[in-house]
């Protein structure tokens, strides 16, 4: 689906991508990881046809620069930082729907609803006035509504609250099994449950390329109960953010659900209160 041979990209004399070779097959879900400046964003921009380069790059067997319409019509892209678009939500939705035969305002609305964003209610607001999470949800909805064969996301769930994140990951797990994904992230744990392969970049070269076993429970909702040794505002806030409910009217015991794909993230957040946890069960 994506073939990269000897890809080199320089800015002036600075080499950003150095003789890079990578093959991505249909349905693979790849975490593209690496430090800042490793070349992740540059690689994504090459795949989107934004940069000229040395070496061969083909997406669906086509050159993404020369056949940009054909290639980009099959790619969904979600940037890390929402750009300062001055359009209203309504205008942006109409604009995006108008660029692809496969997208429509209705579809975008449905995807946004699933992520917890009401497009009709927020239609008159300018994109800039939305919160970070709402912007991210809208950009994800716009990308998914195009039913892309390849989904490219830069820090995909960075601005999402746990609820939006769960809905987003669940959707990706269930509905987009055949979609090839390229998820750029600083942290593997953010996307570990979702991916099948990790590609690590460093100084423009691939330093790690490994297959990952996907957990069976990744797409399921898990029941969880936690008991803390003493009530604490911080634990209360974390539990609330995951929509956990206090049991027996006190703030010592909580009950709730989270997505299997979010297990590592959930445990990481809880690890801050490890000394305060006296009982934890996950089923």
């Amino acid at each position, binding site marked *: 689906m994506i073939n990269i041979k000897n890809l080199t990209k320089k800015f002036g004399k600075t080499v950003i991508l150095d003789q890079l070779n990578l093959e991505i097959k249909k349905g693979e879900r790849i975490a593209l990881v690496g430090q800042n400046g490793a070349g992740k964003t540059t690689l994504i*921009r090459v795949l*989107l046809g*934004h*940069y*000229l380069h040395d070496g061969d790059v083909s997406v669906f067997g086509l050159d993404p620069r020369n056949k*940009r*319409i*054909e290639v*980009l*019509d099959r*790619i969904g*892209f979600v*940037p890390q*930082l929402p*750009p*300062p*678009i*001055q*359009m209203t939500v309504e*205008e942006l939705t109409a*604009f*995006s729907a*108008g*660029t*692809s035969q496969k997208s429509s305002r209705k579809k975008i609305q449905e995807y946004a609803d699933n992520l917890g964003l009401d497009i009709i209610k927020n239609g008159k607001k*300018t994109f800039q006035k939305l919160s970070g999470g709402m912007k991210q949800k809208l*950009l994800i909805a716009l990308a998914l509504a195009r039913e892309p064969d390849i989904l490219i996301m830069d820090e995909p769930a960075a601005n999402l609250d746990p609820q939006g994140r769960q809905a987003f990951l669940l959707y990706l797990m269930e509905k987009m099994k055949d979609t090839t994904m390229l998820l750029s992230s600083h942290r593997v744990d953010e996307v570990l449950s979702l991916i099948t392969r990790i590609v690590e970049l460093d100084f423009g070269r691939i330093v790690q390329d490994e297959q990952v076993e996907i957990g069976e429970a990744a797409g399921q909702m898990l029941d969880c109960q936690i008991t803390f040794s003493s009530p604490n505002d911080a634990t209360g806030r974390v539990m609330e953010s995951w929509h956990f409910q206090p049991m027996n009217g006190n703030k010592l015991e909580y009950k709730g659900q989270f997505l299997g794909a979010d297990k590592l993230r959930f445990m990481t957040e809880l690890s801050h209160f490890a000394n305060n946890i006296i009982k934890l069960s996950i089923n």
Partner: protein
Amino acid sequence: MKILFQVARADFRESVRAKWFFIYNLVFGGAIILLFALGITESRVLGFTGLSRLLITYIQLCVAILPILILISTVRSVVGDRESNVLEYFLSMPISLAAYFWGKVVSKFILVFVPIFFALILAIIWGAIKGLFIPWNIIGYYSLLLGTLSWCFLGIGMLISSVVKRQEWGLGLSILIWLILLLFIDAILIGLMMQHKIIESVIVGVALLNPMMAFRTGAVLLFDPELTAIGPASWVILDALGFKGFLAFTVTYPFLLGWFFAGLGYFRFKRGDLF
């Protein structure tokens, strides 16, 4: 084509909400109102009075400030989107580079031309209410002149916007180009001519190539067919092209120049890295 108009519509809607557009409207709408309020229709210059007098003042005002206002407002188009990552996002959608670039050009042309054209309409309406004679031939020619002036400087603005990497550079370059064009109108070239430092044909050639000069002479040509109030380079050009030829030149040359610069901008935009 559908996407091009979609880009144009989106850019137009965004720009209409911007402060610069409000100020731009205020300047040109306000200028007409101010000229009426100051009683300029009552005064006389070169034998002209009434609405013709007002129009000649308005067009002179436009020739002086419109180029720089157009440059400042359009120079951000590509480079601004590039800096803010808006360009990266929109060009990750299936939009051709041509649709994106020319969509912006169409939108910006409407944005810069329509307010000044409406200001002319406002003058006609006001003149009609006041019972003044309406010089349709002047209005027609001035509309054409303002249209080509807008197009020409829009082309220059889009070229600068495609070439520079930072908005500040774009703004600086715009002001520099505007100043250079102002310097090379024949009122200043006359100094060189009088000192006999540069041969006459070079001075005439420079004046002829300067679009600002074309507007300046075009603006007064209808009122002053001998160009007595303009510098020597204009006389030579007028002598060579004739009255009608010069009139045609003042609208055709900037129009072609606008296409040339916008085309060059598109070529530059298309052939390199997009960011």
